[in-house]
């Protein structure tokens, strides 16, 4: 039976979706449209007058060494976070798959970290990695300068990557576990009969069959790291020390709202948007289509 509502009045369906459409319009299309407009104009900080300047904002960005430094740290953060989150989630899922079969309770419990707001995670990890408290203060006492994310850019980046991947691990784990449980049991049993031990089976059978899940998660993790990392950076490092964690979303915020360069920030946000669109395109075009076995 087809489950499909039919409406007599042609207006009613539109009215029903109107609230959703309004929300999407007000919080997505309108700001995005404005961002595009601002990116090609020059806005006076104190209001009044807006001037069409063409590609000038973009040219200024592309010659800025700060901008390229920001792109670089964004890439380090995104790839570092995604790699760590995927590898750890995959290992957890592989080992738990051997014990837990189809337990829904586990999945719910393990997806919670993903639902925790980034600033809250940021606060917790700031305390965990604080150079003047806990384990790290002891280590610093033994060997001064061993760990200080407020002074050392590399330390700050490592701290951010840990916090960011902690959240993504939960998400990735759920997908990997679901993927593993959808691999027919006889396949791993056949490999066991063929003489492969547990690690060999993971390498030869389970991991290759997880390839579709793997590529899906790479794209999702990268997108997430590029866009959703603002909360973490703002709480934990504020982009410092010395711009070492000034990743693209955070730079957009600080240029626009602290430096009051709306036009430059708008141009940067357009570039970031295009990057995300490109990743999404890759996801749909290649990953979803190609990575299928039968």
């Amino acid at each position, binding site marked *: 039976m087809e489950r499909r509502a039919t409406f007599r009045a042609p207006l009613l369906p539109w009215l029903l979706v109107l609230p959703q459409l309004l929300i999407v319009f007000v919080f997505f299309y309108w700001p995005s449209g404005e961002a595009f407009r601002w990116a090609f104009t020059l806005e006076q900080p104190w209001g009044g007058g807006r001037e069409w300047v063409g590609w000038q904002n973009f040219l200024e960005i592309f010659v800025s060494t700060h901008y390229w430094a920001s792109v670089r740290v964004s890439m380090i953060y995104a790839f570092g976070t995604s790699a760590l989150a995927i590898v750890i989630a995959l290992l957890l899922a592989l080992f738990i798959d051997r014990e837990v079969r189809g337990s829904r309770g586990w999945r719910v419990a393990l997806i919670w970290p993903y639902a925790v707001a980034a600033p809250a995670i940021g606060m917790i990890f700031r305390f965990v990695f604080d150079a003047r408290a806990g384990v790290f203060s002891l280590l610093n006492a033994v060997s001064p300068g061993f760990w200080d994310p407020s002074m050392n850019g590399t330390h700050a980046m490592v701290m951010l990557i840990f916090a960011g991947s902690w959240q993504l691990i939960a998400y990735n784990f759920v997908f990997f576990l679901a993927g593993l449980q959808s691999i027919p049991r*006889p*396949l791993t*049993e*056949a490999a*066991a*009969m*063929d*003489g492969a031990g547990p690690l060999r089976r993971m390498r030869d059978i389970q991991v290759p*069959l997880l390839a579709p899940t793997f590529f899906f998660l790479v794209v999702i993790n990268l997108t997430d790291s590029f866009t959703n990392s603002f909360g973490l950076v703002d709480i934990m490092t504020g982009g410092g020390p010395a711009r070492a964690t000034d990743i693209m979303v955070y730079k957009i915020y600080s240029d626009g709202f602290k430096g009051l360069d709306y036009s430059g920030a708008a141009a940067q946000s357009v570039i970031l948007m295009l990057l995300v669109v490109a990743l999404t395109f890759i996801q749909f075009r290649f990953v979803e289509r190609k990575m299928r076995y*039968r």
Partner: protein
Amino acid sequence: MSAIDLIGVRKDYGSQTAIHGIDLALPEGAFIVILGPSGCGKSTLLRMVAGLETITAGELRIGGHRMNEREPKDRGCAMVFQNYALYPHMTVAENIGYPLKVAGMRRAERQARVAEVAASLELGALLGRRPGELSGGQRQRVAMGRAMVRQPRVFLYDEPLSNLDARLRVQMRLELRRLHEKLGATSVLVTHDQQEGMTLADHLVVMKDGRVEQAGTPREVYSRPASLFVAGFLGSPSMNLLPAEVLEGGDTLRLAGGHLVRLAEPLAERGRVTLGIRPEHVTTGGLPARVEMVEDLGASVLVHAQLEGGAAIAFHSPAEAAPARGEELGLGLPPARLHLFDPTTGRRLAAVARAESAHRGLDFPVA
């Protein structure tokens, strides 16, 4: 000598017992078929032999050595799964060669061996394909190849033919049998298809509810079923089962309609029994029956009739001499062909099938 010995082997899943202490000795080099209805524990038994399930109690020996604690790969068994379980991301050649690769065989040697096995299964042209690009019968052969390539002592098959269509199934059945002759290893095949069991087996094991009902050659099991269950499960159409009563003296039965049936040998039991006779053994005689339905099987017809007293009976008749619906006729139950069972325990009662009594044939004194 036996290839596989099961000594009091039991399997519990939590509080549920799937296999209740089975004792079996499976002969070396034989084609063994484990037959039983769905859920009776056949797969569990096979998987315990393979090492894919732990053994709760008892001992498993392969080639005389205790195997309970050994890993699957150390048991010298290869297995063909119901859905073939081919690795979907590997080509046919990689699938067949995988056991050798895991064993660390060098590439050139491995390829030669794979080519040899593939040739024997007529898979030579398909070596570069993925399992997704093969037909059911081809997948079946690849699964066979993967099992053969390590030259195991024992082949285990879990319902290997159940996913094929009827014609291919018969063809693959022959192929399995031919392969068995060629390889000379011991084969153990699990199936719920009684015809498959009858045609493939040298040694047939019939299971029910986690217990062995009967084991022997298919001929033995078919002609002397040890229980009502085996009698009904083997043969298609299945054996006629009629309620009867043993009269004083023990050599005469009274059927529900009051008619008497002479036995070849006297029974020790008195009272109620179940009388069994296969449809192909019913002859003409003095037992009145009325034809209810006639099924055309092509080569012959199967007649469903009702005996006086209400019991149903089916029998074969040549297509040319097929009776019409509603026709009254007289049936004969040759004493040598009768099987007798205890209706409460289901066990076989006495040896009645003796060749020398066959000639005594058809006398049915009507009461």
